């Protein structure tokens, strides 16, 4: 039959810099990050890892209702977030705690959000891990998969309209690329050449659905061609490679070069969330194989090998990290629930008559409850 237009025949390089053993790939230029920057990245990854582990324990103990972490995906998240300027917007999915921590999200605020207590920045209205940090240019997290993509494109479009030389970074998973929102977001990004970096954490799974059932395309990166975008595949467990491609994509965006779709090839080492048991649907062997590619260990080896870090430093850092977590966790766990009045705030900028009425009705019905709930 006629020669069809067979894109998938093309080879797709995966960009790598840092090998699992902590050494650099042959010919790869070392990251131009100074030791201070390198250690900030490492400490953030370490913190992200330990917070995740600790919060999963907390959930098992019934102290929080739910948790969703990023075990194994820290490099893809933190490496990319670090490539943006602090004033540039990050539009997250629900796994980018590392990006928030890199920008200085206080652990106390995070823990309060997990508890949904009176000090929760989002007032106890969303599930754990669904915070919003606009003061750090970090968007509001939502559960519906993919909705942040066209929104982020709209933000980048606005930045372009206002002639700000800013890039926007949006995160999403492999599953999200199947949604209409990914399609329209990427298509608008191409048509209006907006300054955005579309970063897909391809962690191979969408809850129990493997990448092979998500799409028949060879990769996520190849989808860029459908929108006239540049598509790049990068080793998502390689913090240097992720950082470098993201920085270049962001720079290109700032300079009017438009959007880039980056596929960070990584793996979700844990269950989808604390509600999930992955043993029901995937082989241990696969998990083991990816454990061998641990981004944190890889980075640590590099730092030690380069003399920026030592086992002693590491133990010290581990202790500090644990301590920091314990201190804020204790404080956060003491805070009571939000006042019931807060239920009615923020639906609109003001309380319309029907909400005033419902608040009044709720007040009267709950009587005591209000007292109980004061903080």
């Amino acid at each position, binding site marked *: 039959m006629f020669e069809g237009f067979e894109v998938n025949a093309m080879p797709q390089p995966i960009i790598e810099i840092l090998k699992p053993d902590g050494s650099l790939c042959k010919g790869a230029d070392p990251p131009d990050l100074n030791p201070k920057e390198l250690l900030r990245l490492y400490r953030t990854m370490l913190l992200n890892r330990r917070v995740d582990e600790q919060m999963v324990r907390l959930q098992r103990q019934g102290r929080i209702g739910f948790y969703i972490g990023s075990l194994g995906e820290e490099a893809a998240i933190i490496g990319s977030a670090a490539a943006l300027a602090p004033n540039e*917007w990050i539009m997250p999915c629900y796994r980018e705690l590392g990006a928030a921590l890199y920008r200085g999200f206080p652990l106390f605020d995070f823990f309060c959000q997990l508890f949904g207590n009176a000090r929760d920045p*989002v007032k106890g209205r969303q599930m754990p891990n669904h915070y919003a940090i606009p003061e750090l240019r970090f968007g509001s997290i939502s559960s519906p998969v993919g*909705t942040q993509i*066209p929104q982020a*494109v709209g933000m980048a479009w*606005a930045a372009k309209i206002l002639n700000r030389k800013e890039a926007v970074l949006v995160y999403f998973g492999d599953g999200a690329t199947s949604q209409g929102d990914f399609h329209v977001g990427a298509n*608008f990004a191409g*048509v209006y050449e907006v300054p955005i970096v579309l970063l897909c954490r391809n962690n191979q799974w969408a809850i129990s659905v493997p990448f092979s059932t998500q799409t028949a395309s060879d990769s996520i990166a190849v989808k860029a061609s459908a929108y006239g975008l540049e598509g790049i595949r990068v080793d998502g467990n390689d913090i240097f490679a992720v950082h470098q491609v993201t920085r270049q994509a962001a720079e290109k965006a700032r300079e009017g070069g438009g959007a880039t779709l980056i596929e960070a090839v990584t793996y979700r080492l844990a269950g989808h969330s604390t509600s999930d048991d992955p043993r029901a649907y995937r082989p241990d062997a696969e998990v083991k194989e990816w454990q061998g590619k641990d981004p944190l260990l890889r980075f640590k080896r590099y730092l030690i090998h380069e003399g920026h870090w030592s086992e002693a430093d590491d133990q010290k850092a581990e202790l500090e990290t644990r301590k920091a977590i314990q201190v804020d966790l204790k404080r956060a766990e003491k805070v009571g629930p939000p006042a019931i009045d807060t239920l009615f705030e923020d639906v609109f900028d003001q309380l319309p008559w029907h909400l005033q009425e419902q608040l009044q009705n709720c007040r009267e019905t709950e009587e005591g409850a209000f007292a109980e709930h004061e903080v």
Partner: protein
Amino acid sequence: MPVYNIIQAVNDALRVEMRRDERVVVLGEDVGKFGGVFRATQGLHEEFGPDRVWDTPLAEQGIIGSAIGMALYGLRPVPEIQFADFIYPAFDQIVNEAAKMRYRSGGKVTCPMVIRTPYGGGIRGGHYHSQSPEAYFVHTPGLKVVIPSNPHDAKGLLIAAIRDDNPVIFMEPKRIYRASRGEVPDGAYTVGLGKAKVVREGTHLTLITYGAMVPTALQTAEAASDQDGISMEVIDLRTLMPYDLETILHSVRKTGRAVIVHEAPKTCGFGAELAATINEKALLHLEAPVYRVAGFDTPFPYTLEEHYLPNQKRIRRAMQESLSF
């Protein structure tokens, strides 16, 4: 004062606000050079240029999704959905995202935007160019819903909506887009959201309606007073969320009778909310049940649309049932 039709009033409101506020931008299918399939955005592309007015790809979820992003970034987008019947691909972005942004972020993130869309029947548009989906949005906490019935209100309400800090669904009565004409003040003025208007004083019965049904309601009221000496009060709600309970109750307490008129299907339509609330708050003043004259519970038809839509006959019949109850 110039005499405008509703399209001209909408166009004028957009122009006035775009001149006043750089942050106001317009996007949608065919809204640019072409000026919109109903011409509501005519001339905006020329005056404000390609950086404030865009034609978009054919994707409502992309239009609303990116408009939300613009609002998050600080602009005041006024996206157009070409027909209300085509708003559903954007439904998730509207009800799960725009509507909940402020609440879910603890009040830290807001998304002020106005989604303009022509709604309603009477133009021989059949299933997909005639729908009235307002009840879906009224039922969704976090959205304001506005429906003007004449040029003066259209301009004043649209300007108020653009200046409002909440997402607003602004539904335009396309059936009377050109038929409804009236004096419209030059420059900027607002008609406050949440305020209904008694467009006809009466004593025997209260007709509550909005949008394209207002003229029908008024004609019915005139005929009823001429032919049967029945005095109907007619309320034009103008805003459905939050709606003006006070004006409604004040009128119903006076007349003791109410009939609600809207184009949307009856079951779970906005009329159900009004009837339920009137009964909840004014039962003892009611001399008869609150009746609803609405679109039938069928998809919107083509050939027989004038039989589907509330018409004078059906409103008269409900009036008589109420008066003879």
